[in-house]
């Protein structure tokens, strides 16, 4: 008798499990006890790969439910550095990418993988480091600071360290740009010594590591602020004012003519939504309450006017 009950019980479990797979959702608890994640028709899943700096600031947590409601789709956000994000785009594993690496993006579009690129926000990078500032970079320009960090690091690799993203992200590309502008060959920098550490992680985790090791790091201001506050970072911002620190975010739809994707319509909707006045306003005010200043600047108000800012047609015209 006991055996029969056990058999029955296990058959029921097995059937339940198999059914749940067929349905495609998780059994038991629905995901909807918190109003922010209503489940729409689970068939339409719109996937984007996003740069980690946007993710780590929590901006997506905020925007995701809004877009899901607006477009009536399930949005899946995959956390990836720009390099990986573009790779996902080329493979067709995501429908759109949100990145901030001008060189890589241009190539991506030129190769035919991306279309309908629109810029929607910008902020700046900064160089953070230990308050004691052993390399003495406070207040210098970006290239000067990097020079000093290199020299100090080469002579005192135990006290002076630099944590690089090391993951082909937008931030990593910016870092490489600064090194080359400072007159260095990046390949040399990479193997120059143990003062130069490649984290291979997203922006947030890299900041944590820099904090751990009391090292210098290039970060975008938004992630830095968010982490400073939430995780009690002890590293501080040392170098901020420099045009080269301009960091512009854009969204690109994956081109269905080159890659096997199906949701171009939703991707376009998404891009237009990002540059719509309402959302631009949301982006512009995000973080103001908590951090005293907003973490991102909207492009639509035309406030971006230094070298490297995109032209208006790239941020104000809707995608057809």
């Amino acid at each position, binding site marked *: 008798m006991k055996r029969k009950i056990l058999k029955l019980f296990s058959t029921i*479990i*097995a059937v339940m*499990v*198999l059914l*749940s*797979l067929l349905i*495609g959702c*998780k*059994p*038991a*608890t629905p*995901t909807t*006890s*918190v109003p922010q*994640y209503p489940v729409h028709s689970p068939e339409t*899943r719109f*996937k984007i790969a996003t740069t980690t700096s946007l993710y*780590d600031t929590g901006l997506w*947590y905020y925007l995701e439910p809004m877009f899901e409601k607006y477009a009536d789709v*399930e949005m*899946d*956000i*995959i*956390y990836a550095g720009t390099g990986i994000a573009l790779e996902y785009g*080329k*493979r*067709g*594993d995501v429908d759109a990418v949100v990145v901030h690496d001008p060189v890589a993006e241009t190539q991506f579009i030129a190769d035919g993988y991306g279309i309908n690129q629109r810029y929607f926000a910008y902020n700046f990078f900064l160089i953070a480091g230990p308050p004691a500032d052993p390399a003495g970079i406070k207040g210098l320009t970006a290239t000067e600071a990097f020079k000093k960090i290199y020299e100090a690091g080469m002579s005192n690799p135990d006290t002076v360290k630099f944590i690089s993203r090391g993951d082909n992200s937008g931030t990593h590309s910016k870092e490489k740009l600064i090194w080359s502008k400072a007159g260095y060959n990046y390949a040399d920098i990479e193997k120059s010594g143990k003062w130069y550490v490649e984290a291979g*992680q*997203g922006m*947030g*985790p890299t900041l*944590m590591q820099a904090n751990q090791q009391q090292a210098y790091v290039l970060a975008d201001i938004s992630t830095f602020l968010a*982490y400073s506050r*939430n*995780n009690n970072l002890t590293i501080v911002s040392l170098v901020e004012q420099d045009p080269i620190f301009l960091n512009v975010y854009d969204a690109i739809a994956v081109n269905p003519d080159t*890659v*096997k*994707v199906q949701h171009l319509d939703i991707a376009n909707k998404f891009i237009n939504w990002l540059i719509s006045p309402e959302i631009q306003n949301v982006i512009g005010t995000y973080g103001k309450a908590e951090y005293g200043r907003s973490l991102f600047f909207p492009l639509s108000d035309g406030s971006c006017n230094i070298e490297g800012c995109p032209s208006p047609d790239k941020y104000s015209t809707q995608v057809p």
Partner: protein
Amino acid sequence: MTAIWQGFLKAIELIVSLNHEVLEITVRTLAISISSTVIAGLICLPLGSLIHFNNFRGKRTVINLIQTFYSVPTVAVGLIVFLLFSRSGPLGFFELLFTPQVMVIGQVILISPIMLGLVIAALKGVDRAAYETAIATGASEFQATTTVIREARYSIYSAMIMGFGRAISEVGLALMVGGNIRGYTRVMTTAISLETSKGDIVLSIALGIILISIALIINFSLSRLQQRY
């Protein structure tokens, strides 16, 4: 030190208050890992019986090969499954990448060697005469086979539990093919690794406590079953 202790207390609070995110991640993890275990079991039990009860050329080689893959690195399997199911891969038209389903598929691939190997070992542990006795008592070959399987049932349960343990505790595969998407493919292991690296200790600790508890329950059941001998 106090920071860790504070974190620990907050984590307990999350668990006890049935925090939605903790609950959701836990349920999903169990659903995915139990599904993989069940499916792998449905494949490995008949397959293991087939291999055990038939003598064929290269049987020893096959068994050795299976044992070689017992501890194949999860990221290796993850990479292969990713390349297979990526939209531009051979199985891309299924559109399964970054879904819980592909995670189940990947875990099935991951745990099958160990389940298969242990099922075969379990069957081997049954006296050959048991099969013979069944046949002599009038069983058909199929009935005699199921008799031997029943004789080995405790070892087979252990094999299932082992498989489940490996499935639920792996990170690499879940991360690579699942994408760790919040609310969709985030499981305990990927959540812990993400949250820890981002500095959100509280959620990590909460999930860690649950994961370790599950592991303890697994081990406890395993030893109880083995005592049944």
